[in-house]
């Protein structure tokens, strides 16, 4: 006889549900309410319908112009971070020792940047890259290169991208290292028998076997870099001018600097939808990986 279902345990989830409602759900609903209204302060709101969204999605308007500028900037930042961090992460993971005392030392050193709070990372780089007292800034200027991230947009971009690479490449390395360690020795032995060189081993064995962890790394790094706020805000404050004003920084300027709640709410909803889509792709990719693995195991057991 089938055991009757007992769903009383779901009641235990209630406290979490309440907490999420107050910390995420209700604020999110408020944002939706704001996005269709205009406010002149004093908690007075006026209906604006889809007005803010129309303005936001039209690059010819002031709001649309700054939104699309910030969006392209953020996408460029994410693309640069991925283009550097993924190949670099794979390269570093390939050079890490596979056994011995070096493994623990390497992993601890690599994990260090990941453990530093984001605002501290920003502060470290803000000082490190200063041309007057910063080691990096003074050294680069000492080499005869005019480097000043507070005035030169290119220098500001180089600084924030370098900071992100410094902060997050370790994550890619650790993921790739785990992926590499999971490859059975038999593959390498077979490659040796066939006389394959290092490049052939990388192309035919390591890279295909890293596909899953690399997908996770790319999606994680894309989401993180696309939502980046603290580090560039501490280093450049979005400047010089608007050169490093990414979407999140622009959103804060709009909502807290100008107190344009309606415009900011419309912008956050579009921003949130983009993130939500990437999150879904991430979820779908990882769960598909799991279901494929389960199917593979089941087929293997069947044979």
């Amino acid at each position, binding site marked *: 006889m089938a055991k009757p279902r007992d769903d009383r345990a779901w009641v235990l989830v209630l406290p979490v549900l309440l907490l999420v409602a107050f910390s995420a759900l209700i604020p999110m609903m408020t944002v*939706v*309410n704001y996005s269709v*209204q205009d406010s002149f302060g004093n908690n007075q709101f006026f209906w604006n319908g889809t007005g803010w969204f129309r303005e936001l*999605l039209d690059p010819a308007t002031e709001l649309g112009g700054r939104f699309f500028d910030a969006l392209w900037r953020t996408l460029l930042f994410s693309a640069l971070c991925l283009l550097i961090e993924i190949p670099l992460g794979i390269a570093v993971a390939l050079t890490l020792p596979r056994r011995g005392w070096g493994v623990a030392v390497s992993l601890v050193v690599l994990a260090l940047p990941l453990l530093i709070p984001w605002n501290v990372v920003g502060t470290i780089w803000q000082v490190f890259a200063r041309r007057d007292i910063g080691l990096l800034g003074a050294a680069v200027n000492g080499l005869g290169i005019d480097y000043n991230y507070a005035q030169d947009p290119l220098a500001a971009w180089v600084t924030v991208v370098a900071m992100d690479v410094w902060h997050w490449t370790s994550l890619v390395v650790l993921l790739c290292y785990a992926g590499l360690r999971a490859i059975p020795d038999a593959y390498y032995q077979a490659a040796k028998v066939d006389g394959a060189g290092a490049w052939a081993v990388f192309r035919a064995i390591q890279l295909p076997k890293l596909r899953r962890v690399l997908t996770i790394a790319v999606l994680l790094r894309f989401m993180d870099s696309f939502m980046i706020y603290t580090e560039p805000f501490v280093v450049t404050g979005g400047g010089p001018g608007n050169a490093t004003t990414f979407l999140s920084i622009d959103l804060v300027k709009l909502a807290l600097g100008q107190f344009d709640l309606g415009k900011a709410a419309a912008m956050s909803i579009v921003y949130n*939808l983009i993130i*939500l889509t990437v999150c879904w792709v991430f979820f*779908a990719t990882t*769960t598909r990986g799991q279901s494929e693995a389960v199917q593979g195991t089941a087929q293997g057991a069947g044979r």
Partner: protein
Amino acid sequence: MALDWMAWTSETALFFALLFATLAAMTALAILRPETERVGILGLPTTRGDRLFLTLLGAAFIHLAWLALAGEAPLWGASLVSLIYGAAMFRWA
């Protein structure tokens, strides 16, 4: 009114009421008619909840695209497209 700080309007209240009603209906359906995952055109195992999520997410993008591209055309056009998209999702995804 106590909810003034959330700046409620009847339109947004109706929107959320419909959303929560949909979620409640889906929960009731999940209890009364339990289902198994299936693989559709997306090549992924999806449940009814997944298909609803994709429908809602897609509907949001359809409405945004409509606002950006359709000029002054009435917004219910986007809702109609979203309904067709949602039906396709539930049938084939």
